[in-house]
């Protein structure tokens, strides 16, 4: 019954990247999509019409993550060049480059007000950069991680980050505490449920784990896909009814949130699925893969 609603129809194939696409993200209202990849570019798409809008070039190495502000005016991206780039969307110019990470930067996110950029790096640190001042120094460095930090989520008051040391750490700015949830397995990617109560963490033992944020309980585990060596994203559907995740064999899996059964799985890409992003409102999904395409799926 719910199966029908899942986006399984390929609507568009967004081609243009010259190498593996490492991340594909919807913007905050789902109108546009951003992708970035090993060809050192960031591309802006209209996924609903399958149009390539703009290409952002300035990175010297692969771009691993990209995020756009709520008002779609600024971009931030990061990657192999150890810097966080802060872009102007319309002009395509780099406004600022935040330097400070000691090695590759894995993930980057804006906060709600787009006043800071939080980045997570291979150097085991999380850094917060101020967009409002002209300083390019980080305003906060969180280095309690024991290994590379892979993914970030931000709420209004918290910074949540998943690391290869197996922890998902929540830094509550309002209270001033750090909550560390240790999964015992390297965490690849985390994503927040739409109600903000749960964290879905993709672990490298080919398991997605759903964590209750308030209690730290493990609510569910989702298995069936392959995730052993690549950073494959996972996300919850817009209704929080299902869990979507990419697999290294090019499949996309859908699990039922509650009973953890595989509702659907289909071959979306020929090669490893690197990123899965779900439309915030509609039943629409974009996936990116190493096969240099971004695909748009709709119900």
């Amino acid at each position: 019954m719910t199966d029908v609603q899942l986006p399984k129809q390929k609507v568009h194939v967004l081609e243009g990247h010259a190498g593996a696409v490492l991340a594909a993200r919807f913007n905050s209202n789902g109108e546009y999509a951003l992708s970035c990849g090993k060809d050192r570019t960031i591309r802006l798409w209209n996924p609903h019409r399958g149009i390539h809008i703009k290409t952002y070039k300035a990175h010297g190495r692969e771009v691993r993550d990209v995020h756009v502000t709520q008002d779609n005016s600024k971009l931030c991206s990061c990657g192999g060049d150890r810097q966080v780039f802060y872009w102007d969307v319309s002009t395509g110019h780099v406004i600022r480059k935040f330097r400070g990470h000691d090695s590759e930067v894995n993930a980057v996110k804006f906060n709600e007000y787009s006043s800071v950029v939080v980045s997570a790096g291979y150097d085991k640190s999380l850094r917060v950069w101020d967009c409002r001042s002209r300083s390019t120094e980080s305003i906060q460095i969180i280095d309690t991680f024991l290994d590379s930090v892979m993914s970030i989520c931000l709420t209004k008051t918290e910074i949540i980050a998943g690391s290869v040391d197996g922890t998902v750490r929540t830094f509550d700015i309002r209270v001033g505490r750090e909550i560390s949830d240790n999964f015992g397995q390297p965490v690849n990617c985390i994503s927040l449920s739409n109600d903000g109560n749960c964290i879905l963490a993709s672990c490298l033992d080919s398991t997605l784990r759903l964590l209750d944020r308030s209690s730290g309980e493990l609510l569910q585990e989702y298995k069936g896909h392959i995730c052993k060596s690549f950073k494959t994203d996972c996300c919850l559907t817009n209704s929080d009814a299902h869990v979507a995740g990419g697999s290294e064999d090019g499949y996309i899996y859908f699990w039922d949130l509650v009973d953890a059964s595989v509702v659907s799985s289909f071959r979306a890409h020929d090669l490893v699925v690197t990123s899965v992003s779900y439309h915030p409102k509609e039943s629409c999904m974009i996936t990116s893969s190493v096969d240099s395409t971004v695909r748009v799926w709709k119900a």
Partner: protein
Amino acid sequence: MDSDEEDFVFYGTPIEREEDVSSRKKKAVAEASGQLRTLPAWKQEVTDEEGRRRFHGAFTGGFSAGYYNTVGSKEGWTPQTFTSSRKNRAEVKQQSLFNFLDDDEKAEMEGRVGTSMQYDTFGFTSAELARKQAEKEQKQRPSAIPGPVPDEVVLPVTESIGLTLLQKMGWRHGRSIKSSHTDSLYNAKREARKAFLAFSFADVDAQPLGSGLVEDATDNIVDLPTDDGSQFSKKTPVYMLNPKQDLHGLGYDPYKNAPEFREKKRSRLSESTQMGHQDRVLKDSLFGFKSGRVAPGFGVGALEDLDVEDEDVYASGYDFEETYVEDVEEPSRPKVENLKMLDRKAHDVLPGFSAATKSDFQLERFDPPVIPQNFVPHHKFAAPLESDNMAPNLPPHVVPPPGDNNLKILIEGLATLVARSGKLLEDLSREKNQFNPLFGFLNGGEGHEYYARKLWEERQKRNDQGKQQLDAKMPRKVQKMTAESRGQILGEKPIERSLRAANSSGISADAISLSSNLSDTFTKPASRNELLESAKPFQDDPAKQERFEQFLKEKYHGGLRPKDGSGASNMSEAARARERLEFESVANTINKGKLGKESIPPNELFSSTLATAGLQFTPGAAELAKFGQDDGIATTSMYPKREEFQWRPSPILCKRFDLIDPYMGKPPPPPRARGKLDSLIFLPDSVKAPKLEDDVSGDRRHSRQEGHIEEGKEMVDQEIEVDAEPENIERPVDLYKAIFSDDSDDEAETSNQNVAEDPQKKVEAVNTTLNRLIAGDFLESLGKELGLEVPTNMPCLENKTSNPAKKDTVPIDLTEKNINQSANGTSSTSDAVGADLPDPVLAVGNNNQNISREGRSPREGTIDINSRKNGGRGTGTESYRDDVKKNRFETEAQTHIHAKAKGDQHRSKNISSSDDEIDRKGRRRHRSRSPAGDASSDSSEDYKDRRSRSRKKRSSQEKSSSKRHSKHPKHRRRDSRSPSRHSRHGSEKERREAKREKRKYKD
């Protein structure tokens, strides 16, 4: 002096000093008398009547804006009276060109616009002039041709203005413009200036419409050119003698700065025609180049001129003249000469040699190879598929196989077939199976891409094989060795794409797996690997076997070492260490066995070693396997494990997130202890009760925060004691800190100051120190009783995680009594403690006694806790929070204890204070016992509470808690606040009421 002077005798008249006649005057006079007239003009000085130099300054010969001669004041300019620009401001000055022109320029400007002789570069007018001159001269001199010479025959030279000017300056043809002598340079300049002036006037004069301004000046200058005229009229124009013969551009003179070469060249040219001319030329050249003989050893810098000093005085006169300088400007000439030489070569190459008539050099010629009869000039390829192969140069994309396994097999099979037998087969099968859906891939259906790829691969494979066969066929050629084949020979393993280091993410995993693969690659191919592969001591546990292999690899290989793989990551440190030891021993035994029996096949070898050494490690292995299982269980039960730490966001971060900094105004936090010790100590607890972890760490953090609060409290309490009765001293909540940390110094200091302030405080100080001692001892005894090991210097007590201890069993029914007791207690406290007051020494004595009686105290303490807790303020956690909140309750609790202590004479106030410590500890314990489900909401509420509290504190107390930390403000505050405190202390109950109300309000 005067007397001395008187002794001298003066003869004659002293020479009169001419003060009035200055030396300048003399000089002027002398000059006037014509002494200096003999000097050349440029050496004469212009002086005024006083004999002062008229012109001086930076440019000799120019004028200077000095003070004496030019302007009227020392400052340089005539002072003017100040005129305000206020009235005539904003006056736009119309500037015109004339403002900047000199008088003569103005005159020119006003005059007509036309060509002037001065700028007659092409020399038409000068040609005209020259002709007139020539005519004039002709009349004077006797000529070979009588009568007027027609213009066509004798054309006077027209010279450009530049040339004329130069000639007027004294320059002659064949001479360099730059004079070697500075004097002559100076001279030339002067000449030029003069000439210029003269010329310009002459020009003006020549114009019939010349302005009247210069008219008067003309007559004395007009004769000037005529004077010079005789000079240059004598000259024959050089230009006529030198018709242009070279290939240079018009006006380009290669010998401009080196005229000696011109002569040289000319001499060379004329040499061929007339030999007698040479002498003259040489003379000419000598004449032409004034300082021609340059000393051989001394170079002249690029910026220097040839000077008199550079002339070679000792030169014989012809050494360097004779040196032949090849004319670079004429490249064509030597070529021609070379050709001539070649021509001449045929006849007689060198004097004394004659060309050979017969040479034995012969060009060898070879016949073309004989083409065999049956040769067909078309190339046939070895296999027909080769030609097919030429087309698909680019390999198709790597395409994953289609989902259908049957189809995949079919595709692969067909691909191999087609590759083997050519494209014809493909066409055939396509025709045959045109309507077979299974063969849709041939017509671009499903799996077509995969088919294309497979076909390509097969062809490649066949190609390679073919090549290899070809290679094999060629016997002489050395077989080409590829990297792969070399690797095969050397035993290298190709780097595989299999990424098994799964403990890290995509990229890092790449790196790790690469490193491991590399470590695989750069190893000996030898038998050891096989040995190890066959030697599987941990066959029952594949994970462990894998680890063991990894271990061996690391042990023998060195090189890049990845971090522990995922297998070992979930093992504890201890287990890993144990396993490592295990592996070491196993590896040793294997090695020994190998050394002993080299020839025995590895399997056998291992079994034998197993037989011999089996006992050594098999039990361990079994145990370890069990351990691993335990670990596995642990991992499932352990994760996800939650921990809480204090984390301090930077103020700017809070600002950017639009949040209030939770640590606003607090001192910077101490560096978080991330020691191994910490985690090791807590590990068992967390394993046993993972849920508890939350509370525990929460508490830990909590206590730290309380530290601040309690310190404040403490101080307040001390005030109370001072003023009312030294009943008890509030201890800092951090017992460990109180005992071991440097805080004691702090305390000591305060007590010292107290001594100075108040004699009563001495007592307090003594008590304080004693308390500390007692507390320490008491802790130990308490620990014993609880069955805990109390390390002497370990922060064990700071962690409030202790096991759910015996205390849990404290009977609740006791509380009923205690409620009553506490009710009574409050009223009776003052009396009881008041009695203690007069004799502090006794109190100390009591304390000492009490130390020995500590055994009893804990239980009492705990009872006390429960009673107070339940009796005092309703229900569990709620009351707890209240406790933390307000220290007043502490004092209340203490009074309660004292009420009890009334009966027991040995128990003094000091014990009570240490009781209080237990009390608090107990509460903490209670806290950790609170149900897990409750915990989260509880804690969050707690945070809220704490925040509000801290805010309240901030406002009510003196704003900065940093002050609270520093010692001196503490005292100050104490003094200032003590009266109010005192008064408040009296009405305990009232305050409690107020507190409750406040809470209600808050809620």
